């Protein structure tokens, strides 16, 4: 067994475990966007960064736990990095509920960038899902820098694609899309206001979405308001 310290507690994990696995084994939450237990670690979303005492922050999903390692998963540095990252994520893909949820959970209260609605955050989950779980390999990354994107070979549907939809299923941006794209700010603080933008689009914003953390805590979606609102909708 490997002994390491996470946030001051000494823990033991199997050799070969990653820092992320070690932390989750002991119930220490580390947010991720490009990680899935069934897929290989990729380290693209940078959300799971942790502090190892010296040097730059490292991604916990692809860093092996080593003997005597001292890990801090929620230091000021880490929290600041995550908040700034999420601000970028929100601006890139404001319609992703997963991202909006994480942002509000991490206390992101403003988005200083202009929203771009690029949607794809290039987490690579779909690419790995297709290759590793579906044994397809029908999509991959093309280009670099600004022109990097998830693409089909030669932009034509590959014969390897069985249209199984696993890529859609695993996408943190495609699933659970908030359709209220007309929000004034990229950050969904709609429910912190008294007239959330999504109400204009949907009669019942609760149709399939669970409320985000910010809404639950303070907004009109908080537990009591939710029941009364639902009752009102049913009555109508």
């Amino acid at each position, binding site marked *: 067994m490997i002994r390491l310290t996470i946030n001051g507690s000494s823990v033991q994990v199997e050799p070969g475990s990653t820092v992320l696995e070690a932390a989750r084994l002991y119930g220490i939450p580390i947010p991720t966007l490009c990680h899935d237990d069934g897929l290989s670690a990729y*380290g*693209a*979303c*940078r959300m799971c*960064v942790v502090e190892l005492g010296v040097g*730059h*922050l*490292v*991604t916990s999903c*692809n*860093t092996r736990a080593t003997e005597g390692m001292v890990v801090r998963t929620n230091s000021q*540095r880490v929290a*600041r*990095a995550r908040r*700034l*990252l999420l601000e*970028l*994520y929100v*601006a*890139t893909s404001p319609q992703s509920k997963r991202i909006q949820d994480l942002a509000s959970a991490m206390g992101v209260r403003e988005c*200083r*960038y*202009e929203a771009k609605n690029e949607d794809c*955050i*290039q*987490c*690579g989950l779909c690419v790995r899902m297709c290759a590793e779980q579906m044994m397809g390999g029908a999509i991959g*990354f093309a*280009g*670099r*820098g*600004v022109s*990097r994107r998830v693409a089909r070979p030669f932009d034509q549907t590959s014969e390897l694609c069985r249209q199984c939809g696993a890529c859609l299923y695993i996408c943190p941006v495609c699933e659970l899309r908030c359709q209220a794209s007309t929000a004034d700010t990229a950050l969904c603080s709609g429910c912190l206001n008294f007239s959330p933008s999504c109400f204009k689009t949907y009669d019942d914003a609760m149709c399939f979405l669970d409320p985000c953390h910010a809404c639950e805590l303070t907004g009109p979606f908080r537990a009591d308001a939710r029941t009364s609102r639902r009752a009102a909708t049913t009555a109508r």
Partner: protein
Amino acid sequence: MSDHLCHVTDLEALERCAIHGRASLYPERIKIMVGMATCGRAAGAAEVLEAVHEEVEGKHLPYAVAETGCIGWCSQEPLLDVWVPGQPRVTYGRVKPGQVRDILAELPDPKTNLALAVMTGDDNALTGKRISYCNGGDGHVDGLKSYADLPLFKRQLRIVMRNCGIVDPASFEEYAARGGYRALWRALFSLTPREVLQEVLTSGLRGRGGAGFPTGRKWQAVCEAKGTPKYIICNADEGDPGAYMDRGVLEGDPHSVIEGMIIGGYTMGAHEGVIYVRDEYPLAVARLSEAILQAQRSDLLGKDILGSGFSFNISITKGAGAFVCGEETALIASIEGRVGEPRPRPPYPAEQGLWGKPTCINNVETWATVPVIVQRGGAWLSAIGTGKSKGTKVFSLVGNVTNTALIEVPMGTTLADVVNEIGGGVPAGRVCKAVQTGGPSGGCIPAAMLDLPVDYESLTQAGSIMGSGGMIVMDDHTCMVDIAKYFLGFLEDESCGKCFSCRVGTQRMKEIVDRISKGRGSEEDLKLLEDLAWLVGETSMCGLGQSAPNPVLTTLRYFRDEYLAHIREHRCPAKVCKELITYSIDPVTCNGCGACISLCSGTAILGEKNKLHTIEQAKCTKCGSCLETCKFDAVLVN
């Protein structure tokens, strides 16, 4: 040339090669040399060489004509050298094909009124010996300075570039004549691998690719790593804008790199080497391929080198032009045929590199230094330089500087010495504003800090990095916001794009800086820029992302007032940012010559001959051609 290639089976055979080499290096007849590296060719050296050939062959002159690499005097390319036995080597600069006839006509008395300088001899860093060209005389030529007295060359110490601009890069014999492959001989037959390693450790040599990791320690790690086979890689994927040190060495002296790699292979027990060179350097690829072929045919590469029992071979992989492939793990991925994206370290390439085996990656310059360390001892190199930075470093000195040049100086030389003395300072009438070191990963050091010694620690402390050796001098006509925008534009294209923070972070930084340069920024943008720069540096995986904010951070640190002028006053102090400047014509000085009218691309200049011209602002594209062409300083920029 390579016609009478020697088969090197023992030291005597190598000596025989060297004799052949000396005969072509210092022939007993007049020798004409043209600097035919890419820099020379770009300036028209090929035409000059052709003119020389025509003249020599046409008149059946008994002269030897040779090509050579880049001696580093870029501002004077194309360079032509005339060497009359027993006399100093006379260098002609900015030679036009039409002048060749004149220059050759006067021989054997060189036409010195056309010449730039004379070289009376040269110091060979490898052998430590000075070769005098002048039959014992001092080689003084009236009215001409000697290389040794030229500010450009006086402060230089050429170890890596010991043969550049002197030997014919296509000649194995000339390399041997300059003491080449003696270090390999010494390593193979007089030293054990452990002793070679000890010499490299003693030398204190640090990686010349930019990060400055101690070479000896890297070698030690590869020596100790378990797993066979082991690999040696030479990183020649030079991509920094304005940097061409590796190209200069590969095109001027490819054998020095090959010899270094063979010694490295012997030390670390590797039998295969790969040179990863970018395909945009076709001449470097050609020179290397030729040199490898020569070394193979001479038994210096291949099985049982020189009968020592040690086998080593080198192959070339051409990079397709991705900047990020200069990062070692991305480079390895690229050689293996995968997408050139970095992977997290550890495991370091020293443990798991090419094909998962222990691999030693060093830069071109590092490899070229190795033979000197073996030949002269690690202690000799470690006596040069500063406390933690030993030896010399090659820099490409470019930008607003009088002598654009490829130079090699001992570590610890101050930036002021490099820029003002070696480089001759910024052109007259201008003021030096900043020096950018380290390419897109480096930063801008303001003119006030030019007394900074050039070594790894000092540059890092100033917020920049040593980098691979690009050094861009900027004068007061340079806008630092514009510079930051330029480098961010480069990085946003060249980020591999895997890490979200690097890919999107560089794009957003560019967006913000672009906004500021257009006068639409706010002071909150500066805070955002700093936050973002911190984020990109902190959370990106590889060196590219971690150092990507440096151009922004250093310009913000040293030139914040310039950012503020763009934001608060909507003014570009250097008058560069197009959105913030207007061109107008001074009614007092304009004499209506009409020169600007014919050049104006947007037909924005109105007026008739001998009458006052005016610029129609709506049509003006702010290209600046009127400003450049006006001889009477009548075009004003505000």
